[in-house]
């Protein structure tokens, strides 16, 4: 799957370069159709509010549509995620989205496989703590981790999206993982006691 995305990168870059030259709505639509769902999902990972996520995804495509110059050597995917990440992080900075705005039930996915109710409770509680910790991470750490964990982007693509080096990207992901792993190490009895 990742290979498929890699090989599509050049083609998408060519479409984008041609769109900037010709303003062809058909070319724009090709890119839009390919990334429409992904951009809504990506925004959702930051704002956790379907309406706001859709607005942000629309803003991403409006930015793409307004683009007057595009360097064909820049992989389109990384460039698009850069636009999206900037918009999402700006939104998060404007208004911190708390866990109370979740529109899904934390732990429902992971709890499905847990037979023991106690395990289920612990899993749900850990999911909530991990979610909170992720949201509390510094903006770039959070963005790098989200792109690595949920978007399947390589270190190189994330580096381009965040306008930083590959080594800095690895460091961002490492620090994010360290923070999340600290939640895993947290004694479950204390956490479960707090939840009960």
């Amino acid at each position, binding site marked *: 799957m990742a290979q498929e995305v890699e090989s599509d990168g050049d083609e998408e870059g060519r479409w984008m370069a041609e769109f900037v030259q010709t303003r062809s709505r058909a070319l724009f639509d090709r890119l839009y159709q390919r990334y429409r769902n992904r951009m809504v999902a990506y925004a959702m990972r930051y704002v956790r509010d379907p309406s706001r996520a859709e607005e942000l995804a629309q803003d991403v495509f409006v930015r793409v549509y307004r683009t007057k110059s595009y360097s064909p050597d820049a992989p389109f995917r990384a460039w698009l995620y850069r636009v999206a990440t900037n918009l999402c992080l700006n939104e998060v900075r404007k208004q911190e989205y708390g866990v109370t705005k979740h529109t899904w039930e934390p732990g429902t996915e992971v709890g499905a496989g847990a037979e023991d109710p106690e395990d289920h409770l612990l899993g749900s509680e850990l999911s909530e703590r991990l979610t909170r910790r992720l949201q509390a991470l510094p903006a770039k750490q959070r963005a790098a981790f989200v792109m690595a964990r949920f978007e399947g982007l390589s270190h190189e693509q994330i580096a381009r999206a965040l306008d930083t080096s590959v080594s800095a990207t690895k460091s961002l992901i490492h620090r994010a993982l360290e923070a999340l792993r600290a*939640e895993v190490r947290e004694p479950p009895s204390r956490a479960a006691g707090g939840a009960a």
Partner: protein
Amino acid sequence: MTRKEPRDLLLAYALGTLNERERSELEADLARDPVLGESLKEVRAVVQFLPDPAAGVEPRPGFDTRLQARLDAMDAESRRPARAGRWLAPVAVLGLAAAALLAVALRGLGPSDPEPPAAAMLAELDLLQDLDAVQLVDVVDDLEAIESLDLEEEEG
């Protein structure tokens, strides 16, 4: 080609996205480094228990239509020919006002002119009657103020 740090591969390993070579190298590292093995367990727990808030999320009906409407509006806006006139008109008025002030200043230095400058300016403004922006600016008030300054100078 330099080898990647094992710790940087743990997340990709837990996600199952490493290539064959990277995977076998990391597994060799894991076999001889128990600390790395413990780290992997924690990373796997993060992957398993951190929920994806976007799982199954798709744009709702109307999403495409709303975006197309925004793009259409942008296209229509960019095609409007009168756009430049919106800011050119006030600039023209400001230019005239500046010219009037300059004329008043010069008149004070030179010989007296039998025709009031404001009347000449109003004649020039007739040319701009069609510009909406001109009608929005209270030019006459400005001219009256200029005239009163002019009179004060003459009286002085």
